[in-house]
C-alpha cells in the first residue's frame, strides 16, 4: 500500500516538475514570490491580500541564494508588489528562482494528496483511498495549479485537513485531536483569507453531530446537551488556537511592516474602500484592538473591496461583474468527463442509499457546498482554481460512493478503471498546458478560451512555448498582445515580437511602439482576444481578430495571425499612454502631440478623449479641454457604460470643477 501511494505521489511530483519546467511564470506569481522573500525580512505589507504561509515556504530555497533585491519605493502596495516582483524575478536567474519556488510550493499539493488518501481510507477503506488518488493525480486543475506559488492548493490542503481532523475528533474526542484540528485550521487561515469559511463549516458539522441520532460507531452515549457543550468547548479552543497560529505566521507582530515602513495607502484609507459599512466597522475594531495582525486585516479589506473590480467571461460573453452561475458552468467545462460521470454516479449511489455512511457523506458534502455557495456569491470569476477545495472533497466523496459499487461487481471495477485511464489520457493530451484544460464535451483545450478566461485558460505562462515557436519558424519581426505585459519581464525571454498595448501594460507603464497598420505574424493571448479585460466591443482594440481564422495556436492560448492588420484603436491607446507619461514628466508639448495622435486615431474612445482633456488642462487651455472631457463622459456613458464606470465619476468631477472655475472667473 505504501509503495502504491508513494508511486502515485512520485508520479504526480514528476508531472509538477515537468509542468514547471515547460511553462513560464504565471501572472500572479512574481508578486507572491517577491513578497514571500520580503516577508522573511519582516515586511508583510507588499502582498497583504494573501496571508504569508505559502509565500514563506515557497521562498525558503531562495534564502541561500545571492539575489538582487529591488529597492523599495513608496508606491501603493499593489503596484510595489507587482513591479517589485517583476524586477526581483527577472533581475536574477528567473528560471532557477521560479523552479525552486514552485517545487517548494508543491509540498502543499503533495501533502494534500496524502491527507486525501488517508481521509478516504479511514472513511471508506483502502480502495477508496486509491480511487481518490487516482482521481486527484490526474485532476487537471490540481495538476495545473499544484506547483504554482499561489494560495489555492495550500488552502485546499488545510481546509481538508481541518475537516478531516474534526471528523476524527467527532469519532473519538480527545485533546490531541482538537489540537490537530486547530493546527490545521490555523494553517488554513495562514494560507488564504477565504479559509475563514472553515468556521461555518465546522459549526454546521458540529451542529449536525449534536442533533443527529447517535450512531453505533461514535462510542459515546452523551445527551445532546452534553455533546453541545463538548463541541462548543472544542470549537472555542480550535478558534483561539487557530488565531494564535495565524499570529505565529506573522511573527506575533501586529505591524505589517518593519524598519519604520508604513502601509501605502494607510489602514484607514484601505478600510474606507470596503463597500459594506458593517464589514468595514468590524475590521476597524479588529485593527483598533490589534485582534489580528495588521497585514491580515488590511488584506481582508482588499479581498472585500476588490471583488467588485473583476470582469467575468463565460461562453463568449463578458460581464462587468461576477455572475452566480460562473463556477457551476466552469466546472462543466474544466472538470474531466471522468469526474463528472463519477460524480453523477455518486449522487445516484448516495441518493439510493447504497452508500450508508451518513456522517462521512455529510463531512464531505457540507464543506464543498458551503465553499461553492460562497464562491458563487463572491465577486471573483477569474478561475476554476478558486474552488479547488470543492474538487478535493468531492473526489473523496466520489471514491467513497464508487467503492461500494466496485466492491461486488467486476463490471463496475472495469468501468471505473476505464474511466480513470480515460481521464489520464485526457489530461495528458493537454500536458504541460494543464491550465488550458477543457474536457472533450467542450472540444478539449483548443476550445477552452471560447468558454472561460484568465487562470482557467491563459495565465500568461506560454513564453517558453512562444519563444520555441518563433525560433522554429525563424520569425524575426512580429507583434505580441501578451496578457502578462508589464507583470512579467517579457524581454527576458528574447522573443523577437514588439508588444502591443494591454490593460496591464497601460497600468504598469510598459510603452508600445504600435503603428496604425501592422504586418503579421501577430500573437495574441487568449485573455486579450476575448476582451475579458478591455471589455466587449467596441472597447476591445483586438476585437477584429475574433472573426479571423488564426494561422496557429500555441498552447491553445496564444493565437497566431498572418497578414496585414489595421489597429488604429490599439495604436491610439499606445499614444494616449505616452501622452500620460509625458504629462507626468511635465513635458507638455510632447504630451499634446501624442494625445492629438491618439484622438485622431480613436475619436470614439472615452479614455483617449479624457487623456486629451488632461493634457490641454495641464497646458492651461481649459476651454479646449472641456469638450474633450464632455465627449469622454458621453462616450463612457454610452459605450458599454458598465465596463467604463470607473471613468464616469472622475470625468464628472473634472467637468464640475471646470464649471466652478468658470463661474469664479478663473482662467
Amino acid at each position, binding site marked *: 500500500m505504501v509503495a502504491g501511494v508513494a508511486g502515485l505521489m512520485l508520479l504526480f511530483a514528476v508531472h509538477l516538475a515537468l509542468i514547471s519546467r515547460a511553462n513560464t511564470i504565471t501572472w500572479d506569481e512574481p508578486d507572491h514570490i517577491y513578497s514571500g522573500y520580503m516577508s522573511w525580512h519582516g515586511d508583510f505589507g507588499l502582498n497583504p491580500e494573501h496571508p504569508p504561509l505559502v509565500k514563506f515556504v515557497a521562498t525558503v530555497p531562495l534564502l541561500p541564494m545571492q539575489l538582487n533585491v529591488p529597492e523599495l519605493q513608496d508606491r501603493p502596495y499593489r503596484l510595489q508588489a507587482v513591479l517589485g516582483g517583476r524586477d526581483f524575478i527577472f533581475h536574477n536567474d528567473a528560471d532557477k528562482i521560479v523552479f525552486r519556488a514552485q517545487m517548494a510550493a508543491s509540498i502543499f499539493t503533495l501533502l494534500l494528496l496524502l491527507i486525501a488518501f488517508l481521509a478516504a481510507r479511514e472513511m471508506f477503506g483502502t480502495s477508496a483511498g486509491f480511487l481518490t488518488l487516482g482521481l486527484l493525480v490526474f485532476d487537471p486543475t490540481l495538476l495545473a495549479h499544484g506547483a504554482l506559488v499561489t494560495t489555492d492548493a495550500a488552502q485546499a490542503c488545510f481546509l481538508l485537513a481541518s475537516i478531516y481532523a474534526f471528523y476524527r475528533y467527532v469519532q473519538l474526542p480527545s485533546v490531541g485531536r482538537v489540537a490537530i484540528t486547530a493546527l490545521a485550521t490555523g494553517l488554513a487561515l495562514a494560507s488564504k483569507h477565504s479559509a475563514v469559511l472553515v468556521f461555518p463549516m465546522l459549526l454546521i458539522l458540529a451542529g449536525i453531530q449534536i442533533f443527529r441520532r447517535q450512531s453505533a460507531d461514535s462510542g459515546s452515549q452523551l445527551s445532546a446537551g452534553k455533546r453541545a457543550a463538548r463541541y462548543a468547548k472544542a470549537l472555542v479552543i480550535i478558534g483561539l488556537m487557530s488565531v494564535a497560529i495565524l499570529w505565529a505566521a506573522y511573527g506575533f507582530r501586529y505591524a505589517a511592516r518593519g524598519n519604520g515602513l508604513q502601509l501605502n495607502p494607510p489602514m484607514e484609507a484601505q478600510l474606507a474602500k470596503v463597500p459594506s459599512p458593517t464589514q468595514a466597522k468590524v475590521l476597524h475594531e479588529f485593527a483598533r484592538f490589534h485582534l489580528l495582525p495588521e497585514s491580515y486585516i488590511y488584506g481582508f479589506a482588499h479581498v472585500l473591496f476588490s471583488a467588485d473590480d473583476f470582469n467575468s467571461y463565460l461562453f463568449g460573453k463578458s460581464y462587468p461583474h461576477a455572475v452566480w452561475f460562473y463556477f457551476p458552468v466552469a466546472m462543466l467545462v474544466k472538470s474531466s468527463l471522468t469526474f463528472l460521470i463519477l460524480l453523477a454516479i455518486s449522487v445516484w449511489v448516495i441518493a439510493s442509499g447504497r452508500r450508508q455512511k451518513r456522517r462521512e457523506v455529510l463531512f464531505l458534502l457540507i464543506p464543498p457546498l458551503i465553499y461553492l455557495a460562497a464562491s458563487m456569491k463572491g465577486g471573483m470569476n477569474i478561475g476554476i482554481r478558486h474552488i479547488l477545495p470543492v474538487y478535493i472533497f468531492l473526489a473523496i466523496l466520489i471514491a467513497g460512493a464508487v467503492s461500494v459499487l466496485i466492491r461486488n461487481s467486476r463490471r463496475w471495477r472495469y468501468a471505473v478503471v476505464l474511466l480513470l485511464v480515460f481521464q489520464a489520457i485526457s489530461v495528458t493530451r493537454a500536458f504541460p498546458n494543464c491550465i488550458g484544460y477543457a474536457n472533450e464535451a467542450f472540444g478539449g483545450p483548443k476550445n477552452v478560451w471560447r468558454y472561460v478566461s484568465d487562470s482557467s485558460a491563459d495565465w500568461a505562462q506560454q513564453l517558453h512555448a512562444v519563444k520555441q515557436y518563433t525560433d522554429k519558424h525563424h520569425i524575426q519581426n512580429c507583434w505580441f498582445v501578451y496578457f502578462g505585459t508589464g507583470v512579467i519581464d517579457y524581454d527576458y525571454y528574447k522573443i523577437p515580437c514588439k508588444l502591443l498595448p494591454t490593460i496591464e501594460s497601460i497600468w504598469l507603464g510598459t510603452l508600445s511602439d504600435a503603428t496604425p497598420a501592422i504586418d503579421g505574424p501577430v500573437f495574441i493571448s487568449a485573455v486579450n482576444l476575448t476582451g475579458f479585460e478591455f471589455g*466587449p*466591443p*467596441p472597447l476591445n482594440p483586438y*476585437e477584429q481578430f*475574433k472573426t479571423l481564422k488564426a494561422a496557429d495556436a500555441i498552447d491553445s492560448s496564444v493565437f497566431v495571425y498572418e497578414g496585414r492588420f489595421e489597429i488604429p484603436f490599439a495604436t491610439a491607446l499606445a499614444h494616449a499612454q505616452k501622452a500620460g507619461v509625458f504629462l507626468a514628466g511635465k513635458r507638455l508639448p510632447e504630451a499634446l502631440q501624442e494625445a492629438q495622435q491618439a484622438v485622431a486615431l480613436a475619436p*470614439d474612445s472615452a479614455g483617449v478623449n479624457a487623456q486629451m482633456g488632461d493634457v490641454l488642462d495641464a497646458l492651461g487651455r481649459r476651454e479646449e479641454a472641456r469638450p474633450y472631457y*464632455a*465627449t469622454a*463622459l*458621453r462616450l463612457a*456613458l*454610452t*459605450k*458599454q*457604460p*458598465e465596463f467604463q464606470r470607473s471613468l464616469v465619476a472622475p470625468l464628472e468631477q473634472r467637468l464640475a470643477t471646470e464649471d466652478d472655475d468658470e463661474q469664479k472667473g478663473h482662467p
Partner: protein
Amino acid sequence: MTTNKKGTHDHDAVTTELATYCRNEATRYRVDSIALEFAARGSLHPVNVKRPARISFMATHRSIAVFDLGGVLIDWNPRYLYRKLFHGDDAAMEHFLTTVCTPSWNSQQDAGRSFAEACASLKLDHPSHAALIDAWIERQEEMILGPIHGTVEILAELRAGGVPLYALSNWSAETFPLSLRRFEFLRWFQGILLSGEVRLLKPDPRIFQLLLDNHAVDPAHTVYIDDLKPNVEAAIALGMHGILFTDPIALRHELVKVGLTPANSSDPGAVDQQNTKLQRCRLMPRIPGRIDDQ
C-alpha cells in the same frame, strides 16, 4: 433628433397610426396578402387570417434589442417649448417650425453640425427670430416632456431578463448629455450610437451597419424598434427584425411574439386591447397616401 408627430393625437393622426400599424403587421408577419387587402378595403366579410398559427410559424428567435430613442422612449417635440414661447398661438408656432427652425434644419445638427454654427447662420437669415432660434439650443430640455413610461417599463423588463440593449438615434451629440443626465434608463444600454457622433442619419444603412460592427451585434438575432417606417425598413434590409413603434402596448405584443419579453401580467388588459386593435385593422378603410407618410 427629427421632429415627429407625437403629441398631436387628433383623429387623423390616430387613424394614420393605426393604418401604419396594420401595414406593418402585414410586412413583418407576412399575413396573407389577400386577407390584408380585404381588411384594407374595409370589407365586412369575415377574413380568415389565422394569425396566431402563422405568426408562431414565422417567428424567429431574437435575443438583442435595438431601440430608437425619440418617439419611442423619450417624448421629444419642439412644440412643448415653442407653445410656451408663442403663448399658445399654434398657427404662429407651426409657421415658425415650418419656415425657420425646420425639421431639415434640425436634422443637420443631428448629422453633426454644431448648434452654435447652425443658430448663427439661421439668425443671419431670420434676425427677427434670433431669440426664438437661440431658445432651440438654450432650452433644449423643455422640448422633452419626459419618458414614454410604457416603453421604459418594457426596457426595464428586457434588462432584467438579461437582453442586451442598444440604442440608435438621430440625435445631436452636443445635446444628448442633457438627456443622459436626466434619464437613468439611458445608462441601461450596452451601447448608444448617435447620428451626431458619426455624421450619418438614419435611414442611411451605414449607420445601422456601424452599430452592428462596433458592438459585434448579429442582425439575425436583433429586433429593431423605431417610430419611423423608413428606419424600420432599413433595419429589415440589413437582416434585423423591424418593429414600427406605435405605442407600448403594441410593442409589448410584438416583442412577445418574437420571444423577447413576457406579456406584462400586471396589465391584463394589454392583450385585449391588442386584439381590439387587430380587429380594427380588418375593418379600417384604406387611406390612400397616408400609410406611407411615416
